[in-house]
């Protein structure tokens, strides 16, 4: 069984460790900031309380001129626990919280070379949004 609940400070070490293992980047401060009251930070765990994965997001209005939307900032699932619907369950739970806040749109940014995460969001029904992300090197 997968249980989903809001993340707490006591979850941060396991969250940071899972993310660092998957991305190679240790960013504990970033995850602590996700506990802010205006953010939605959810964990999925087993019956015995082992971390299966997490998702983080926030409702933002008028970001880049767009009306309020629920932004998905991050999602990570323990690789050994994938293909069991944990990611979809976390995504659905986050969307339900966004809807409760009155937003009717969910949005994220994905590295276009990261086929795995792109496929995940596509499978949830997400499609290309109205914006194009632009970058410039100013070094």
């Amino acid at each position, binding site marked *: 069984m997968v249980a989903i609940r809001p993340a707490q400070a006591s979850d941060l070490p396991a969250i940071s460790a899972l993310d660092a293992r998957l991305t190679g980047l240790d960013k504990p401060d970033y995850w602590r900031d996700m506990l802010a009251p205006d953010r939605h930070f959810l964990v999925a765990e087993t019956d015995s309380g082992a971390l299966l994965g997490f998702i983080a997001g926030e409702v933002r209005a008028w970001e880049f001129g767009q009306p309020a939307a629920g932004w998905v900032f991050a999602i990570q699932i323990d690789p050994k626990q994938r293909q069991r619907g944990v990611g979809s369950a976390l995504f659905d739970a986050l969307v339900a919280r966004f809807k409760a806040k009155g937003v009717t749109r969910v949005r994220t940014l994905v590295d*276009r*070379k990261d*086929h795995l995460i*792109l*496929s995940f*969001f*596509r*499978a949830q*029904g997400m499609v*290309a949004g109205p914006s194009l992300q632009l970058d410039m090197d100013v070094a």
Partner: protein
Amino acid sequence: MKLQTGTRLGLYAVLELAREPDRTLSAADLAERFGVSSHHLAKVLRTLSGAGLVRGGRGAAGGYRFTGNRRRITLMDIVALFEPAPGQRAKEPGEDTDIGATLQRVLLEVDEIAEATLRSISLETMLKPRR
């Protein structure tokens, strides 16, 4: 975005067969469904068969069945069977000029976005009813 006819037929055939993997359809069945030439479709099915995506087909009446993995195979896997890879395209006249090179960079950007989109959509995602 314009796909070559063979690519479009390949996508039609794979998606139609993958919709019900236990079902067998002949090149003629598929051709009739999409209103295209069964000769052209037979050729496309041979390519798909060579890639292991479909199996079957003895003669015009022989039926084809989907044999791939709906969750793993993406639209790009099928497109790549029929369209030349961006890196393998022959050089066009003018590409060596500064304007040609600048234009190439823009076209490459477009290709990269198109490829990322096609690679992110599995057959499973395509065939799932929209929520």
